[in-house]
C-alpha cells in the first residue's frame, strides 16, 4: 500500500516537471502539504527546531533583504516544485563560509559565503535541492533515532561485557562508526534525491558536481596560501559525517552523464543580477579573513565569468594590500589603478591606493590620492587620521 502511495506521488511529481531523459529511479517519500510531526521523537525535534528558528528570525545576523530572499525562494520553488516549497522558510545568515543546513521543521539556513561561491543559478539550485532532500527524507529524525539506538546498544553491551568479563571495545567502536557511516549514507541519499530535483527542474545537472569541484579547488588554494600542502581526501575518515567532496563530485558527475545536459540553462545571469548588490559586502567580509589563496581563487572564478570589473579589481587590490608583503603592496597599487581605469569610483579606492603608495615609499603620489579621498569625503570618519598621515 505504502509503495503504491509512493509510486503515485512520484508520478504526480514527475508528470508536471519531468524532462526527457531525467532519471526517476529514486522513490520520493510521501509528501503532504502542512505535514505535522507524527511521533514523540519527531514532535520533540520539531519543537527544538521551532525554538532555533525563532532565534534565527530575531537574529541580527539574518539578512532580511526582500529581493534576495524572494529570489532564493523562487529558485527553490522552481527546483522542487511550487507545492513542496511552501513547507520551507529560507534564512540567509551573514557568515563568510560555504555552508547551508536544513532543520526538520522546514527551516533552511544559507550562509552568505555560500551565495558568494555559487557560479550559476543551477549550482544554487543544487544546494537548495540537496538541503530540501534532507528535509523531505526526514534525515534529522532518522539520524537522531540512529544515534539513540547506537548509544543504547553501546550501553547494554558495556553492561553485558562487564557481567561476562568480556572486552567489548571493538564492538563499541564499530557501533560508533555506524553512526558516522549512517550520516554519510544520508548525505549521499540527499545528494542523489537533490540531483533528481535538479534534473526535473531542467537545470544542467553537471552543476551539482561542478560545485564540489570548485569547493575542492578553493580549499586547495587556501591550503597553498597558508603554506600547506593541498590535500583532498579520497576516502572519508572514520569520524566524517559527509562523504568526501571528491567522491560527491564523482558520483554526481556520473549521474549527470546518464541524464545528459543538452538544452538546459544554468541561468548564470539571473544569479549574478540577484547577487550584484550584495557582492561588495560579501567580498569585503571574505577579504578580511586572511585567506589569501582561497580569496584569490574566488576572485579569479568571478572574473572568469564576467571579466575583471572595477569592483573585482578593487577587491584584489584590497586582498594584496592586506597581506602586505612589499611585493603585495606594489601589486595592490597596480590593481587599484586598473580598477580606477575600469571606472570604479568609490572614494575608498583613493584612500587605500594612497595607503599602498605611502607604504611603498611614493610619498608625493600618495598625498595626491589621500587629498583626493578627503576632497571626495570631507566628513569621512577617518578624515583626521588621514590628515595626520599627510603631515607626517
Amino acid at each position, binding site marked *: 500500500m505504502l509503495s503504491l502511495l509512493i509510486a503515485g506521488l512520484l508520478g504526480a511529481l514527475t508528470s508536471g516537471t519531468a524532462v526527457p531523459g531525467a532519471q526517476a529511479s529514486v522513490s520520493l517519500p510521501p509528501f503532504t502539504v502542512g505535514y505535522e510531526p507524527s511521533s514523540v521523537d519527531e514532535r520533540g525535534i520539531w519543537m527544538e527546531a521551532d525554538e532555533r528558528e525563532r532565534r534565527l528570525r530575531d537574529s*541580527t545576523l539574518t539578512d532580511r533583504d526582500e529581493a534576495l530572499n524572494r529570489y532564493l525562494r523562487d529558485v527553490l520553488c522552481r527546483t522542487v516544485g511550487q507545492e513542496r516549497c511552501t513547507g520551507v522558510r529560507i534564512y540567509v545568515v551573514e557568515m563568510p563560509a560555504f555552508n547551508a543546513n536544513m532543520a526538520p521543521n522546514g527551516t533552511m539556513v544559507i550562509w552568505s559565503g555560500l551565495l558568494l561561491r555559487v557560479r550559476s543559478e543551477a549550482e544554487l539550485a543544487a544546494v537548495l535541492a540537496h538541503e530540501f532532500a534532507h528535509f523531505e527524507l526526514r534525515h534529522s529524525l532518522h539520524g537522531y533515532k540512529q544515534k539513540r539506538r547506537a548509544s543504547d546498544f553501546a550501553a547494554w553491551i558495556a553492561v553485558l561485557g562487564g557481567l561476562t568479563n568480556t572486552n567489548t571495545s571493538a564492538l563499541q567502536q564499530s557501533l560508533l562508526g555506524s553512526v558516522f557511516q549512517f550520516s554519510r549514507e544520508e548525505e549521499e541519499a540527499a545528494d542523489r534525491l537533490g540531483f533528481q530535483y535538479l534534473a526535473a527542474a531542467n537545470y544542467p545537472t553537471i552543476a551539482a558536481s561542478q560545485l564540489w569541484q570548485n569547493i575542492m579547488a578553493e580549499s586547495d588554494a587556501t591550503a597553498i596560501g597558508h603554506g600547506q600542502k593541498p590535500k583532498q581526501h579520497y576516502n572519508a575518515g572514520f569520524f566524517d559525517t559527509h562523504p568526501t567532496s571528491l567522491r560527491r563530485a564523482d558520483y554526481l558527475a556520473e549521474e549527470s552523464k546518464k541524464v545528459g545536459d543538452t538544452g538546459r540553462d544554468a541561468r548564470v545571469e539571473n544569479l549574478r543580477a540577484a547577487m550584484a548588490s550584495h557582492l561588495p559586502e560579501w567580498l569585503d567580509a571574505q577579504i578580511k579573513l586572511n585567506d589569501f589563496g582561497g580569496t584569490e581563487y574566488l576572485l579569479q572564478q568571478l572574473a572568469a565569468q564576467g571579466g575583471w570589473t572595477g569592483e573585482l579589481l578593487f577587491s584584489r587590490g584590497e586582498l594584496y594590500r592586506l597581506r602586505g608583503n612589499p611585493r603585495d603592496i606594489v601589486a595592490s597599487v597596480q590593481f587599484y589603478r586598473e580598477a580606477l581605469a575600469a571606472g570604479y569610483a568609490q572614494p575608498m579606492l583613493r584612500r587605500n591606493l594612497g*595607503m599602498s603608495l605611502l607604504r611603498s615609499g611614493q610619498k608625493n603620489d600618495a598625498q595626491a590620492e589621500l587629498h583626493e579621498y578627503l576632497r571626495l569625503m570631507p566628513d569621512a570618519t577617518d578624515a583626521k587620521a588621514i590628515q595626520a*598621515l599627510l603631515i607626517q
Partner: protein
Amino acid sequence: MNRIFAVVAALSVAICTPAFGGNSLVQPGIQKAIARSSLSAKADGEWNRLARRDGKFVELWTRDGDSLNKVSFFGGVPIGEPLLREADKKNRPLPKVGSNMLITDIPALLESSYRIQFGANRFSVNEQEPATFGGYPGVKFSYTFINDADEVERKGEAIGAFIKDKLYLVTYEAPSIYFFDKDLSAFRSLVVSLQLEPKR
C-alpha cells in the same frame, strides 16, 4: 585537633583558590609592567586582572566580567606576530603585525583578527583620529561589532601606536547598552595615564 583543623583549612583554601582562576585585584594607583611589557597605567578605581591571557602579549582587565566590560592591553606585539593566540593556526591563521604598517592599519588589523577569531561578521570601524600613546604618535579609534557567539552589539574604543617596531594597543569593549558608557570614563583616564617605562 586544632592542627587537624588548620590542615583542613589550608587544604580547603588550596582547593578553593583555582576556582577564582588566579584572577587578581588591581588596586587604584600606578600599575607597572602591564602585559609583561614596559607599559604602565594609573587605575583610578579597582579593576580585576584576569588570569586568562588571550595571547602572549595580552593582559585583560575587567570590572564586571569580560563579556560586560573588558580592557585589553597589547603590550608590544612584535612584527610577524598576531594580536591574539591563534585558535586554529592551521586553518584560520590571524593576520600578523607588518613591518611598514601605518597607524590606520591598526584598526584594520584588530577588525580582521576579530572577524577570524570571534566570528565578528559585523564589525565597523567608526571614528579614527590621531592621538598620543604615552607620548608617541598613534591613533585613537572607535568601533562596533557583533560576535556570532552571543550576538550582542558591543562598542569599542582603542588607542594604538607603533613604538620601536612594536605594536602597542589598548582597547575597551562593552555592550552598547548601558555597560559601554558605565566605565568609559574610567578607561579614558587609564589611557591618559599610559606610559612606556624605560626598559626594565
